[in-house]
């Protein structure tokens, strides 16, 4: 059963190996699969300026293995949209505020993209944000993600028009956080209760094997 762990500066000491797995998988997905060469690093880890003590990670674990994740970052600090993608936001200022986060580096490992992992991670995302009093989350995504979010029950408003980035039509958008969306996506995910885990450390598993991407 997939559970989604919250990792922040406070508990990351207990998740060292998990976080390293995340950085390695991010490198595989974003550099290896999607070809974002700017992120390429010789150690095979995708770590950028926003992987700092202000970041919160939601990490999907199945039997102790990382199968997906995302990163949340405060919009009151310089963040990816304000620093790198402000040109995607048209006709209004870059959305920022104490109850607004930015979501980046969303990924699901290749062999788990057909199932409910997406919905589980999205449900945990809505639940975490509700619990933290977050009202909206901004992100830059490929356009083909919009219908997936919408079908998951998310209310999404565009912040600009689609723009080509790395050969993909991308858009800056804001996801509204709401109980309705959480209910809808939880149903799609087949969740009866919460799958969000707030712990001080990763579950100890004697047989934890390194994840090998297909």
């Amino acid at each position, binding site marked *: 059963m997939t559970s989604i762990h919250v990792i922040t500066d406070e508990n990351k000491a207990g998740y060292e190996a998990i976080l390293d797995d995340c950085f390695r998988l991010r490198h595989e997905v974003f550099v290896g699969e999607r070809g974002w060469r700017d992120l390429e690093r010789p150690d095979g880890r995708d770590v950028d300026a926003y992987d700092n003590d202000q970041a919160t990670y939601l990490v999907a674990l199945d039997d102790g293995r990382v199968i997906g994740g995302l990163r949340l970052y405060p919009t009151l600090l310089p963040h990816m949209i304000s620093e790198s993608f402000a*040109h995607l936001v*048209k*006709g209004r200022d870059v959305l920022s505020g104490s109850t607004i986060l930015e979501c980046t580096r969303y990924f699901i490992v290749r062999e788990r993209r057909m199932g409910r992992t*997406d*919905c589980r991670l999205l449900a945990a995302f809505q639940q975490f944000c509700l619990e933290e009093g977050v009202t909206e989350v901004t992100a830059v995504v*490929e*356009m*083909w993600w*919009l*219908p*997936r979010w*919408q*079908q*998951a*029950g998310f209310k999404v*408003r*565009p912040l*600009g*028009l*689609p*723009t080509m980035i790395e050969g*993909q*039509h991308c*858009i800056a958008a804001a996801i509204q956080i709401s109980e309705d969306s959480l*209910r*809808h996506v939880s*149903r*799609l995910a087949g969740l009866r209760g919460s799958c969000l885990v707030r712990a001080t450390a990763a579950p100890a598993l004697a047989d934890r094997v390194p994840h090998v991407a297909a």
Partner: protein
Amino acid sequence: MSGRSLDHTVQVFEFIEESDSLASPQAIIDAMERSFAQFRFENFIMTGLPHPEQKIESLVLLKKWPLGWYERYTRNSYDRHDPVIRLCQRTVQPFEWSEAPFDPEIDSKGKEIMQGAADFGMRQGCCLPIHGLNGFEACLSMGGADLDLTPQTKPAIHLMAMYAFERARLVLAPSPRPNPLTAREREALRWAALGKSAADTGEILGVTERTITAHIGSACLKLSAANKTHAVARALQHRLIEI
């Protein structure tokens, strides 16, 4: 950024805001007709992509499509040979019909279809594939005689098309609302609907009368009902309980 491109942003955002309140397929068609006319689109169709055993007619969400062409298209099961449908199944990117590959030398059906669309006034077209959750596949295809397709208009069309599609999906296939009542609340209301008092129900379910009254009370709150009778009527009306 040019002022012209900014204009499109405003138009698109207005369309998206308006689309939120469109409550019927016809209202969506009317709004699309108005908004897409500025790019000289005349016709459009939203449809699911058929599996081999499905007929495309059963998957059409809404359309403003030349009737003669629709009849000919479905009668001949053109969707089995349509280069546009074929490309839809392979890409998540929007494309112009002219970009859908087919070899007119050997693919006579493909040629017949593209020529047929042109004969019905759609010499040009755009298609937006939708690849959603759980294998949901669909597209919004739009055509006209002389479209205004430029690097400035295309992103606007792309985004508008996506929200038009989403609105149609929501209006035409509303997801069932989750039952707001808990299992215990439903049970308490069901017994009430059968004429049992709270004390009777408590006895049947092996709990106290006070517990049943509390369940009924919270059901009243959730259903905005004034009393137990009102709550039972509402729960039956909305099929939240069955007797």
